[in-house]
Structures are given as structure tokens and as C-alpha cells.
């Protein structure tokens, strides 16, 4: 897989001024990025996961050439973001925030045409592309193509944002919180679309603080906190880092605890319990990757002892567990 985005030790500080009197302002240096490095490959969705203020948007803005880094280097589509900014911009589609960024008194179609012209599209090629995107993102079906942007719902705005990012069919997408504030069906549709875009071979960089979403769509994740990348890898690998055991719960009927005690010979230490609905269960832990074999052995054993199995729950650590374990905080903080 070839590399689409390469960030190497990016550093960025902002100078802010806090009011300290009627006319006086105190200077404060805010270190937004303290050496961020990661790579994104073509054909994958890479999630930059972190709480608000962690440095996600700053990273996207540097990669999109809207902001100059103080230190470090970054290449997008093989081009340097500082010295070859125009070529970088020619290779990317960007969304920064879904709730604004269009002209209120222009329709969705007119807005897309305007931004398409700024990207060098014109004539029938522009018309066809705009038409295709309105169709693909279902704005046509929703009757929103020729409605003023000011009349759009948040879900429609998010779709239009994505349509703009796809105007030139760029090989690389950088999306800052693309589903923020969307209702669950709209968020799901956007997620499905991102997955299909990655399947087409595009590199998709997504920032989010939504653990569920990151876990659902991202092939790889970088956890960013306080301007530093604290972990990078596949979701499963990150989970393994914080927990080397997987918990399994098997719900059963007519348990014979004498027989069940013999399970310890198969899986080691076994716990028994009853849930809120009165259903009995067996709980044990096993090595990640061995759960299928262990569960099969236990089900075979239970079958031999005439204990009926109702349900099997495999409790993996969530991405939130990973995040809390690495940062000591929840993703919302």
C-alpha cells in the first residue's frame, strides 16, 4: 500500500492574547502540536482520535495547507505542504466543519458549482459532476438540490460538505468531524459512504472524538492528546495493548453447578452468576484470538452435560477503554 499522507514531527504553537485589563492583553503561547507523526495509506480510513483541543483540527489544517507548521515536515500525495501547497490542494478534498461554509442565499447546486469553478471545473464537466454528487449524496432525493442553503438541515449540510470535498474526485480526503451533530441515520449514511470511498482506493483521514464511530469505520487510528500522538495502530491492536484477556459470558438454562465446575479443566478459572432477568451465566476470560476455539469446546461440553446454551457474549475492551487507559480521561473531556 502506498503512502498518501505523511506527517513527520509536526510542531505548531499559537500566540493568544488574554484580556488582563481594559486595554491590556497578556500574551500566551499555546502549544497545539508537540511533534505529531503518522502516515495514511491509500485505500484506508485513518482516524485521528482525541478530545476537543487535542490538536486534530490543527493537524488537518496543516495538511490541507491552510496553516504553516512551526517545525516538522508533511507530505500529501507526495508533495510538501509548505513548498508545494498548490499541488497538495489539487490532490485533496477537505471538510472543516459541517454546520457552515456555504453561501446562505445560494442553492446547494449553485454552491457546489461555485466551489467547483474555484477548483478548475467548468462547462458540462462541472454540471455533470455536480449533478452526480447531488444524486450520490441523496440531496436530490431529499429535494434539497435547488433549495437555498439557509433552509438546509444539519444532515443536508453535512452531505453538501462531503459533496464539495468530492468535487474533483480527489485521491485524498481530509474530514474534520464529518458526522458531528448528525442524527444517527444521517451519521450512518455518511460512515457507509466513507467506507465505500476507501474501498475505491481513496485515502480518508477523519478526525473524531466519537469512539464508537472510530471503532466502526477506521482501519487504523492515532490517538492524539495534548498535541502528541500517544498510540497508533489497528483498533484490535490498540485494544490488545490495554487488555490481554477477552471476557466471555455464556447464558445457559438448567445449570448443574457440579458439572459446570468441571469447566475449569477447559478454561481455567470460571465464574457463575445470574443476570437481572434471572438468566444464569458462566463467565471466563481467555487469550485474544483463542476465543472461538474455547467457546466451541465449552459448547461441546455443555451439550454433553445436557445444559442448554441461550446466548454467547464476547466482551472485548472498547476503544474508550483504550483511550481511558492511555490518557486517563474520557474522550469527551
Amino acid at each position, binding site marked *: 500500500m502506498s503512502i498518501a499522507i505523511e506527517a513527520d514531527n509536526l510542531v505548531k504553537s499559537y500566540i493568544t492574547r488574554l484580556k488582563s485589563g481594559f486595554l491590556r492583553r497578556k500574551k500566551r503561547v499555546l502549544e497545539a502540536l508537540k511533534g505529531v507523526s503518522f502516515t495514511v495509506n491509500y485505500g484506508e480510513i485513518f482516524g485521528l482520535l482525541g478530545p476537543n483541543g487535542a490538536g486534530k483540527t490543527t493537524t488537518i*489544517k496543516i495538511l490541507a*495547507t*491552510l496553516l*504553516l507548521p512551526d517545525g516538522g515536515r508533511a507530505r500529501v500525495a507526495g508533495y510538501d505542504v509548505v513548498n508545494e501547497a498548490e499541488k497538495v490542494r489539487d490532490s485533496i478534498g477537505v471538510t472543516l466543519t459541517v454546520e457552515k461554509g*456555504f453561501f446562505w442565499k445560494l442553492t446547494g447546486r*449553485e454552491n457546489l458549482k*461555485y*466551489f467547483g469553478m*474555484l*477548483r478548475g471545473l467548468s462547462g458540462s464537466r462541472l454540471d455533470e459532476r455536480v449533478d452526480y454528487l447531488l444524486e450520490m449524496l441523496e440531496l436530490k432525493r431529499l429535494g434539497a438540490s435547488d433549495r437555498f442553503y439557509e433552509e438546509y438541515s444539519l444532515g443536508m449540510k453535512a452531505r453538501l460538505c462531503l459533496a464539495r470535498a468530492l468535487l474533483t474526485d480527489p485521491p485524498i480526503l481530509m474530514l474534520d468531524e464529518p458526522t458531528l451533530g448528525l442524527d444517527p441515520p444521517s451519521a450512518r449514511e455518511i460512515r457507509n459512504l466513507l467506507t465505500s470511498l476507501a474501498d475505491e482506493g481513496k485515502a480518508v483521514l477523519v478526525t473524531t472524538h466519537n469512539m464508537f464511530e472510530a471503532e466502526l469505520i477506521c482501519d487504523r487510528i492515532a490517538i492524539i492528546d495534548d498535541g502528541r500522538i500517544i498510540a497508533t495502530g489497528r483498533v484490535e491492536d490498540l485494544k490488545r495493548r490495554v487488555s490481554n484477556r477477552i471476557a466471555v459470558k455464556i447464558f445457559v438454562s438448567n445449570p448443574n453447578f457440579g458439572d459446570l465446575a468441571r469447566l475449569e479443566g477447559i478454561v481455567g478459572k470460571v465464574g457463575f452468576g445470574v443476570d437481572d432477568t434471572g438468566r444464569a451465566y458462566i463467565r471466563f476470560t481467555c487469550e485474544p484470538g483463542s476465543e472461538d476455539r474455547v467457546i466451541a469446546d465449552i459448547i461441546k461440553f455443555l451439550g454433553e452435560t445436557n445444559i442448554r446454551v441461550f446466548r454467547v457474549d464476547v466482551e472485548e475492551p472498547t476503544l474508550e477503554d483504550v483511550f481511558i487507559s492511555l490518557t486517563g480521561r474520557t474522550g469527551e473531556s
Partner: protein
Amino acid sequence: MVNWTHILRAQIFSIKCWYKNNRWMLISTFVWPYLMVGTLFGVGLTLGSIDEYARKVGVANPALYLLASSVVAMSSIYIMYSITGFILQNRWIGTLPYIFLSPVKAHTIMIFSGLPDAVLSPALTTTAILPAAIYFEGVTGAWRILIILLIIILGMLPLMGLSVIIASLLLILKEESNVMGSIIPFMLLVSGVYYPLEVLPRILQLISRAVPTTYVIEATKIVSTYLIPEARLLMTALYMIGLLTLGYNLMAASAIAKLDRIIKYRGAL
């Protein structure tokens, strides 16, 4: 490859859509010079006579002169606002970063984004007073208005460089509304739109020599007063416009790369 023509075309398209979707805006553009002159006449008549005004300001037709002055004043505002206001408005509605994501140099966007509006708005306001010019002076009046429009467009050239510098400063200072709110009224004050520059304090008179609109208004006055001996002054005004065009645009060209870097370094987009 994307270039300045794409930026121009996109802006023309957005202006076309804006007027198509806001018809009242278009209507008011045509009506306001008359409302302005009506108000000025109303106030003026309570203080003195029209003849007195014509004699003191040195114009043959006060009505036409005031209409032309209104057009020049509004055009100057439009031109300044088209380029600096472009930054301001787009930052407020969140479109600025997406415009700057166009794969061209940032200063190409700054120069060419405001240009169509800067030409179209004066053209529309000038067209608005065309019926009055024809009513007062027939075909000659119409020609005179067209010459005024040409002078306005000429006067726009130095304002372009000046506006790009101001637009960059707006982005860097992040105090857009304060800066804009001060610059435009000040420029109108020192350019002698509605009264002779001679009534201003000496220091403001000196400053006015560096303001491009001053020469646009002088040239407009000369054209609307029709005085042959003043033709030499008209040439002087046009010459000054040319000089300021060179000065401000050279200044902008030398500063723009540095300003672009500062804007992106500070995260102003």
C-alpha cells in the same frame, strides 16, 4: 491547471446567483442614488438655494452632479468593500478556508475574488443614473455618465493594491469590523465626495492626496461640470490615478508573499 480566470469566473457566477436570488437587492441598487440626492436636496433647500450651491461648488447642474457624486461615493465603497469585505464576509460565514483551498496562490485569490464585484457594482449604480442623465442632458449626458464609469474603473486600479494590503491586515489583526468601520468612512471624508477638499483641515488635505478616490472625484467633477479650461486638471487627476496605481500595486506585490506567510503562520484562515 487552475488559474486566475477560474477565480474570476467563479466570482461572476456567485454575483449572478446572488442578484438572481435577491431581486430586491438589485432593485434597491437602481433606486438608492435618487433617494440619496432627494435627501441631499431636501436638506440643502432648508439651508440655502440650489443656485447658491451650484455657484459655490462650481457645477452647472447640481442634480446631475450630486447623482454622479453619489455614484462615485458608493462605487468607492463598493470597490473597497468588494476586496476587503470579501475576506470579512467569507470569514464570518465560514467559506474563507474553502475558497483558499483553491489550488492557486493566496494573493491570486485576494486580487481576483473581489474584482468582478468591484467592476459590476459601480457599473450597476452608474447605469442607475443613466435615465436621469439622459433626461437632463440627452445623449451628451449619457456619454458623460459613461466617461464617469470609465474614470471609476480606472480609479479602482490603485484601490486594488491598497485593498489587498488592507485585506491581509484584516486577516492578521483579526479586528476586521473595527478596521473596516474606520477605513471606509475616513476615505470618504478625505476624498471630498460631497464638498470641496478646501474646507478640510490642512493635514487631511495632505492625506487626501494619497487617497485614490480623491482623483476619481476630481475627475468626475470636471467631467460633470463640462469646463474646457479644466481639461488640464482632468489630465492631472488621471495622471495621479496612474501614479497611485503603480505605487500601491507595487507595494502590494512586494508585501503580498510575506503577508501570505504571516496569515498562514498565524492560522488566520
